[in-house]
């Protein structure tokens, strides 16, 4: 994000755009990424509740995927999945997930 001057930022230090941290993609932090096996998944939603980033996406009560743009690769989801439907894989040499 290009830096703004003192004339264009809100006064009093406030931020008026809630949740705009979504513009800051922390996905490049990870050395390992979670691979989700849709077939093995029993949709217990445990990973969704325990993800520090909120990166496990849920729609209509079902896990639909993991947002690798923000996932930091902490591995909690893989460690906590009761059926090992998530496995941590090393990020490729060229940085691919």
């Amino acid at each position, binding site marked *: 994000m290009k830096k703004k001057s003192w004339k264009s930022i809100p006064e009093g230090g406030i931020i008026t755009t809630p*949740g*705009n*941290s*979504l513009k800051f993609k*922390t996905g490049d932090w990870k050395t390992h990424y979670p691979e989700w096996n849709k077939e093995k998944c029993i949709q217990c939603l445990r990973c969704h509740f325990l993800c520090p980033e909120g990166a496990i996406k849920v729609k209509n009560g079902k896990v639909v995927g993991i947002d690798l743009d923000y996932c930091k690769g*902490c591995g909690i989801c893989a460690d906590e999945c009761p059926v090992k439907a998530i496995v941590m894989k090393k990020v490729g040499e060229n940085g691919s997930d």
Partner: protein
Amino acid sequence: MRMNLKQLASKEERFVSGHRLCPGCAAPIIVRLTLKAIKQAVVVATATGCLEVSSTIFPYTSWRVPWIHNAFENAAATISGVEACYRALKRQGKIRKEIKFVAFGGDGGTYDIGLQSLSGALERGHDFLYVCYDNEAYMNTGIQRSSATPMGAWTNTSQVGSAQLGKKEHMKDLTSIVAAHNIPYVAQATPANYLDLMRKVEKGVSIKGPAFINVLSPCPRGWRFPHNKTIKIAQLAVDTCFWPLYEVENGVYKINFDPGKNKKPIREWILSQGRYKHLWKNRGFIREIQEFVDRRWERLKQLSSMG
């Protein structure tokens, strides 16, 4: 108070990605769970610390609810002011909406520098929920001991050497101190027991007056464990009775989980974290810590049997 997990999981996140907390940090898990468990509109105050700094680096914010940070020691005083203004405007008919008030503080901003402002807010009976995310040290400033740091733990200000083996004092029992304020609802929780935590949050905001939940927040950096083990460590705290899950509702103690015969020895807790590595072979010290945990657990059982 049955919770529909599917509904809760499908709710729009009120604390979004893009924050700079460490991989595997328990604090954002605690915040997501807390905000999910509250149905109503909510205003949040946060003390200076890991959570506040990492979630609001200007010009970014991870908060999709009204949010205020003031200083380190005054989250409770700040939310008192917000809540007082709400009461004033509601009485004047200028606001009709139901709004809940939540303050988040680390152990630093709650047990130590923030203790006075917390005590004052509790005593005055403001209608708010205070959630302490206890990572057992001043982590944001680089791992220094707080009164919440357990005895024997290494930190940068309770170092290990020939003259000293980590922190000399036992951890302060803040949950009991808060309970002594005779507020309607006090509880201990962990993110590992997320259903229990969310139920407690829901209870905390539904009662009228102050509510307090002390949530253990394992820190991979400061406690020295792999960042995928955060939840396992939190569960171990409960299984060893190092961090019992309990509630104090209008002065009545209730233990939520008693491991009974499956209670794990504190040695397992100590072996799981590098901050204790100087004690791994120190049977005498480990025995002392076990005695402390057992004493506290027995007392808690006594209190909850008084019913």
